[in-house]
């Protein structure tokens, strides 16, 4: 769907994207994570030509974005929806008109007032079609009853729903999401993520999700790219990256900010062993007990997976390492904080 090869972009002389290569498959939810300023938004804007790039290649649905002429670029954009952190709705229009706007942009003679078009006998059927399409979209995002509301009077979650409906208006193949949930509270974030997942599943829409929120990528992304200062640090399946030792490096470190001194070992629970009582078994088998000092059980797409951190006294270290190796568990020793 999207093929990126050796992409490089500068702002003046400042490199913002350094030699990125990856591809996004049709129908997948692809995440781009990284800290603020990593270049995520810039990367996303290279996909629909809102930002130019200096070298390398970005092919979207087989078309090299940098080589498209004005008209072709507009057509490409018609096939790609985009949603934003701050929703970017037109405050003076109501919900209906915001969602209808992309459709009007692509109507013939959109500039003529409705009355003139009616007089000339053009646009009647287009108006009816626009109406039907907008209502369909508003039903989808659950805002049909708010269609005449001004967007200023909506909550953040509702505004993002309008943004999603607007982005879907032209039946795009790809939906670009730039920090779509970063301005929302946790509950609303979950609702919006659910909606995005539903859209991905029902319409086989390809999603590119840009965010600095680890929770978001963990929850919905099938694969992800970890971006750091414009460079791609990791690329792979979400589950593999989060569950492999050092997979997300220091980026997933917030969870164990305050661990006791000594040796802390992180045990990873992928799908197949998540529900076994690994720690209890180890304690029993070795005749030792370990304090559990941290951990997390989480939703990766639709499975509960996670890790636990145990604190092991120096003198038992070798025994424990031996046991972990023997049982073929996935684990890593953490650096002293």
């Amino acid at each position, binding site marked *: 769907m999207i093929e990126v090869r050796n992409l490089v972009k500068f702002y003046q002389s400042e490199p913002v994207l350094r030699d990125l290569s990856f591809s996004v498959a049709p129908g997948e939810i692809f995440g781009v994570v990284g800290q603020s300023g990593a270049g995520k938004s810039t990367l996303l804007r290279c996909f629909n030509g809102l930002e130019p790039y200096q070298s390398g290649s970005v092919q979207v649905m087989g078309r090299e974005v940098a080589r498209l002429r004005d008209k072709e670029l507009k057509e490409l954009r*018609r096939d790609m929806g985009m949603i934003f952190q701050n929703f*970017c709705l037109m405050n003076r229009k109501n919900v209906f008109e915001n969602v209808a706007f992309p459709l009007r*942009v692509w109507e013939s003679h959109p*500039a003529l007032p409705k009355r003139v078009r009616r007089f000339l006998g053009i646009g009647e059927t287009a108006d009816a079609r626009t109406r039907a399409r907008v209502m369909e979209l508003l039903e989808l995002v659950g805002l049909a009853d708010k269609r005449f509301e001004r967007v200023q009077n909506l909550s953040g979650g509702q505004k993002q729903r309008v943004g999603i409906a607007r982005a879907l208006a032209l039946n795009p193949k790809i939906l670009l999401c730039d920090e779509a949930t970063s301005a929302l509270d946790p509950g609303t974030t979950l609702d919006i993520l659910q909606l995005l997942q539903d859209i991905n599943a029902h319409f086989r829409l390809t999603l590119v999700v840009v965010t600095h929120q680890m929770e978001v990528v963990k929850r919905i992304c099938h694969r992800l790219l970890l971006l750091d200062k414009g460079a791609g640090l990791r690329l792979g399946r979400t589950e593999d990256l989060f569950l492999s030792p050092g997979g997300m490096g220091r980026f997933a470190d917030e969870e164990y900010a305050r661990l006791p001194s000594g040796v802390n070992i992180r045990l990873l629970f992928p799908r197949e062993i998540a529900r076994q009582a690994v720690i209890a078994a180890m304690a029993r088998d070795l005749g030792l007990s370990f304090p559990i000092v941290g951990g997390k059980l989480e939703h990766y797409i639709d499975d509960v997976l996670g890790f636990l951190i145990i604190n092991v006294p120096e003198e038992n270290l070798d025994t424990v390492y031996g046991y972990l190796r023997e049982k073929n568990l996935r684990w890593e020793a953490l650096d002293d904080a």
Partner: protein
Amino acid sequence: MLEALLGALSETLYMVFFATLFSSIGGFGLAIFLILTGPHGLRPRPGIYAALDAVVNLLRSFPFMILMIALIPFTRTVAGVAYGSTAAIVPLTVAAIPFMARLVEGSLLEVDPGVVEAARSFGASDGQIIFQVMVREAMPSIVLNVAVLAIALLGYSAMAGAIGGGGLGALAYNEGYIRFRADMMLGAVAVLILVVQCIQICGNRIYKKLR
């Protein structure tokens, strides 16, 4: 006295109305060019922008009195006459166009760039973005600026007496100052204050309605 005041008022309103109308149109057009070619515009053209910017600043730095006199030959060509209320509309308009252009440019710059980007993201053309997104979103603020413009023109029009433009300013000067008619002076000033209030209240009303 009332008759004199009413006559002067109608001359003032005539000058201010048409000068506001013409300079709104001209200033609006110029602002569109400034926005298009500006540093964060849809079609950045630093050269063209710098030139337009310089012309706007130059025209705005002329004292109105001087501009009015310098424009007399031009006024004669455009209006057919060099003196009188109709003739005064020409220099008023010329002076107000760059002023209005700056005001409208400011209004358009206030439009959230994210909204513009959103419109670009679904394939809107530059024309559609300018007129259907930016101007539309900025309309309340543009209306307020038209009121500011009209009030500024009211002030300028008082100087139009110098080329026989008449109006409240000329009345206050000729009758009130030269002939020591304090009542005329006070009357003219009172009517001017009233007109300014009316314009501002109208502007605010429309602003609230549009927002």
